């Protein structure tokens, strides 16, 4: 391994601009003549829009335009779409209700935009917005997913009777029922997987500009996938043809899924820019983010796990109601189905699994993929059941897991996934060792002496990343292929630009992708630039989410590098006057095998462009190759996380006191970055388990709508983490990469809740396990210790 090659903890190339304040996020960009847009949003969860009076607002100082949902509708643009079709059990397609970028006729959640004001300054736009009179007729609202499909619930969309989007299922119901019936023991749990607000620190933003001369639109957008944004806005909304629409995703301050989706605001900015003939900029205020960024999770689940007399799992039955909010967001349908039920086998051999998912509309913010997307929910179901099962059976939870681990690969689960490689024993064993599992009893006694309760919890999780084989996802209803593209552009002086359709918003691709290329071509990473995030620069791409950039994006780069090397060898053969088959490329040097004749990388690169020494009738000048890579399977990162908590029974406060993570991500390009991804994922998972509480009141008002009420982990809520890895290479891609971006968020909620329920001695507590919630459990169970 070179100091900057694959496996080296290279410091990030992108950091200089971020630590000096010279990065460029969307809101940092300004265009001449730019105006500000302000969205007028429904304060009602469900209301008819009877009339909107904009006359006074239009005459306010600085106002360039005031537009309503009716006016948007008159322009006959298309709706926002959910791009993944899911079929119900009876074969009927999901009920995708129309989702206009500006609501007309009816508002369906608090925050649904009904009109916009465009003015010279944001303050003027807000001043004018206060003069817009919207006459609402409030309607009854439904918020609780468990009640949405019930008789008499308010109907949100005419096209979706009973507010039901689909009733989907996977697996063998009869066999699973039989397994439950014949089981020696059945563990049953009910959970709420709590709704989360993503809260990337950079609020979403969009800046749209119309160039009348060329008839082209440009959109600067805080997005994780500019090409998909362009595709949807062009092909489905019909804003402009793709060749007249450029989407630029500059530096993006975190996404965690929430910036994958195509949102109303970017569509409206483009529309408004053309209407007023000026660039139009929108940057969300945090209070706006809370009621417009797609939320995550929000499942209500009942699940049963069957065990035989030996402690082997014989079946798993799951019923989940998934709340998708007021509209179907871009990938929402896939999250509680294909990204969820297919992972319900966990790391275990479970012969029979049956999962039913009912997806419903409610008068809440749309729900879509959030870090882990379906897999944290699946892991929570499986890992909570295994842990509770171990307790009920009186078996050490580590031992029960070992007994049920998948041991032989490839392994075909009973829920469609084909696990390609892994060693679950290895990660568990290493985690037990690092964590000093044996010392837990002693630590627990020590805590008890201090009046504290101590608990330990595991999550031996699996996830599916590297989304995804195009043909497979096509069969499952996806509207797009999920390959990735790359282009390797060698300059005459030998430096390289790599163009990728992935987008980085914290993952460090500018460094890891450069490491890959530098390693392969024998260059320093400074000679490699990674370009991404601009549809005019990069040919095509599917963006970054689902831990796909390493497994899919880098594989595309490898493919392009193969082509570059092949062509460079041809050119080197001419330069060195040798047969192409005798050319060996190693450490940045082309050598004629068995001789000391060689040409440096730079000579060949230059040779490719001056084109003096090879027949251009046979070999085209230049050295630039592109590739599309389509994965052959998902990748299956897995690992073991162990969480230890201490609870103050007097206040109910739970503190995470230690954390061990041993993950198998396959090949690791940059361990420093991989560890950072684990840290961040665990923090978000701990946040879900202990702090993050999205609360709607029964009228559909989001009452945890700011940082005053929505708690996210801060530095003093978390410990330092012990992070390590084991490695089994992924056999389905050239680098053996599995992906690491979501693992922490997938493993952590189950690990925390297993630790908390271990400490409390009851399974009956939901996330987030806040201090008052834990206190209430202790108090009800009369387990309060006497005051000290």
């Amino acid at each position, binding site marked *: 391994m070179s100091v900057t090659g694959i496996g080296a903890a290279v410091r990030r190339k992108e950091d200089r601009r971020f*630590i*000096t304040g010279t*990065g460029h996020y969307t809101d940092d960009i300004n265009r001449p003549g730019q105006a500000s847009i302000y969205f007028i949003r429904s304060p009602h969860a469900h209301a008819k829009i009877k009339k909107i009076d904009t006359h006074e607002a239009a005459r306010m100082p600085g106002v360039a335009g005031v537009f309503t949902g009716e006016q948007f509708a008159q322009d006959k643009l298309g709706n926002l779409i959910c791009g993944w079709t899911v079929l119900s059990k009876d074969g009927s397609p999901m009920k995708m209700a129309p989702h206009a970028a500006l609501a007309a006729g009816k508002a369906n959640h608090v925050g649904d935009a009904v009109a916009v004001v465009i003015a010279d300054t944001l303050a003027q736009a807000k001043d004018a917005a206060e003069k817009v009179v919207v006459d609402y007729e409030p309607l009854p609202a439904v918020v609780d997913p468990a009640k949405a499909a019930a008789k008499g619930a308010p109907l949100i969309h005419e096209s979706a009777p009973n507010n039901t989007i689909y009733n989907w299922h996977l697996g063998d119901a009869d066999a699973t029922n039989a397994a439950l019936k014949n089981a020696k023991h059945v563990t049953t749990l009910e959970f709420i997987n709590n709704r989360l607000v993503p809260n*990337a*620190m950079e609020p979403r933003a969009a800046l749209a500009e119309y160039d009348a001369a060329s008839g082209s639109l440009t959109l600067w957008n805080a997005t994780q996938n500019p090409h998909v944004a362009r595709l949807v806005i062009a092909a489905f909304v019909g804003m402009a043809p793709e060749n007249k629409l450029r989407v630029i995703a500059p530096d993006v*301050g975190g996404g965690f899924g929430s910036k994958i989706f195509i949102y109303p605001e970017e569509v409206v900015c483009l529309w408004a820019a053309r209407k007023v003939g000026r660039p139009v900029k929108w940057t969300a205020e945090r209070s706006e983010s809370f009621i417009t960024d797609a939320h995550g999770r929000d499942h209500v689940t009942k699940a049963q796990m069957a065990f035989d007399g030996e402690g082997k799992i014989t079946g798993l039955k799951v019923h989940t109601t998934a709340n998708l909010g007021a509209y179907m967001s871009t990938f929402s349908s896939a999250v509680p189905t294909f990204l969820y039920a297919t992972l319900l086998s966990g790391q275990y051999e479970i012969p029979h699994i049956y999962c039913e998912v009912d997806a419903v509309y409610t008068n809440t913010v749309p729900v879509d993929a959030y870090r882990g997307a379906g897999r944290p929910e699946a892991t929570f179901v499986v890992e909570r059941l295994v842990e509770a099962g171990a307790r009920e059976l009186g078996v050490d939870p580590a031992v029960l897991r070992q007994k049920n681990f998948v041991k032989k690969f490839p392994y075909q689960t009973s829920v469609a996934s084909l696990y390609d490689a892994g060693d679950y024993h290895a990660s568990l064993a290493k985690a037990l060792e690092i964590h000093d599992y044996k010392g837990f009893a002693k630590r627990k006694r020590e805590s008890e002496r201090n009046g504290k309760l101590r608990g330990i919890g595991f999550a031996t999780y699996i996830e599916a990343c590297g989304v995804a084989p195009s043909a497979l996802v096509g069969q499952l209803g996806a509207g797009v292929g999920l390959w990735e593209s790359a282009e390797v552009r060698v300059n005459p002086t030998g430096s390289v630009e790599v163009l990728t359709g992935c987008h980085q918003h914290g993952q460090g691709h500018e460094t890891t992708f450069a490491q890959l290329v530098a390693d392969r071509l024998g260059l320093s990473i400074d000679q490699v630039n990674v370009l991404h995030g601009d549809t005019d620069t990069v040919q095509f791409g599917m963006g970054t989410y689902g831990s796909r950039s390493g497994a899919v994006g880098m594989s595309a780069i490898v493919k392009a590098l193969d082509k570059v090397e092949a062509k460079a060898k041809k050119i080197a053969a001419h330069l060195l006057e040798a047969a192409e088959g005798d050319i060996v490329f190693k450490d940045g040097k082309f050598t004629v095998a068995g001789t000391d004749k060689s040409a440096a990388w730079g000579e060949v690169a230059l040779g490719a462009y001056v084109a003096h020494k090879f027949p251009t009738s046979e070999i085209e000048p230049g050295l630039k190759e592109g590739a599309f890579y389509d994965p052959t399977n998902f990748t299956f990162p897995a690992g073991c996380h162990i969480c230890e908590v201490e609870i103050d029974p007097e206040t109910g406060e739970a503190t995470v006191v230690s954390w061990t993570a041993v993950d198998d991500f396959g090949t690791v390009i940059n361990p420093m970055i991989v560890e950072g991804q684990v840290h961040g994922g665990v923090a978000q998972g701990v946040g879900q388990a202990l702090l993050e509480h999205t609360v709607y009141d029964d009228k559909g008002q989001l009452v945890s709508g700011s940082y005053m009420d929505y708690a996210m982990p*801060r*530095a003093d809520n978390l410990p330092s983490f012990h992070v390590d890895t084991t490695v089994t290479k992924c056999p389905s891609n050239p680098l053996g990469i599995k992906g690491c971006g979501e693992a922490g968020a997938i493993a952590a909620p189950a690990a925390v809740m297993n630790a908390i329920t271990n400490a409390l001695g009851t399974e009956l507590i939901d996330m987030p396990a806040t201090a008052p919630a834990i206190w209430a459990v202790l108090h009800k169970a009369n387990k309060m210790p006497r005051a000290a």
Partner: protein
Amino acid sequence: MAAVSLTVNGKPVTADVDPRTLLVQLLREHLRLTGTHVGCDTSQCGACVVHVNGKATKSCTVLALQLEGANVLTIEGLAAADGPLHPMQEAFRENHGLQCGYCTPGMIMTAVDIVRRKGNDLDDHTIREELEGNICRCTGYHNIVKAIAAGARAMRGSGATSRAAE
């Protein structure tokens, strides 16, 4: 409109502003110093932290007009544009104390302020408590805590403190 004169990153600045202009707007919109970010509207996330007269301050919760005669230091002024990085900036890079980079300027400005108040030898507990007003959604703080401890040590005797404090 009202005039305000202050020093930003060592340079005198005079601006004519609407009284409702916040310091962060003065920096970002008038002076085009966009390293200072806005991440919330309730003064909690800390992405907007700058130094005012040497002290960490949330620039989203101060009016520009309150700063007549004040000395403001932003992330752009922490190190000279053509000079070496400030030891705290260097420590954030060296310890991978950032991912998306959005909270980073506020984190670094807060970190330098912690060193000013708490010295160069900072234990993890102190750092974590002192970061109460800065939210990072990417890193889980592990590496930020490491970076601040290392940056604090590196600042010892380097002469690098908050320039605005001079």
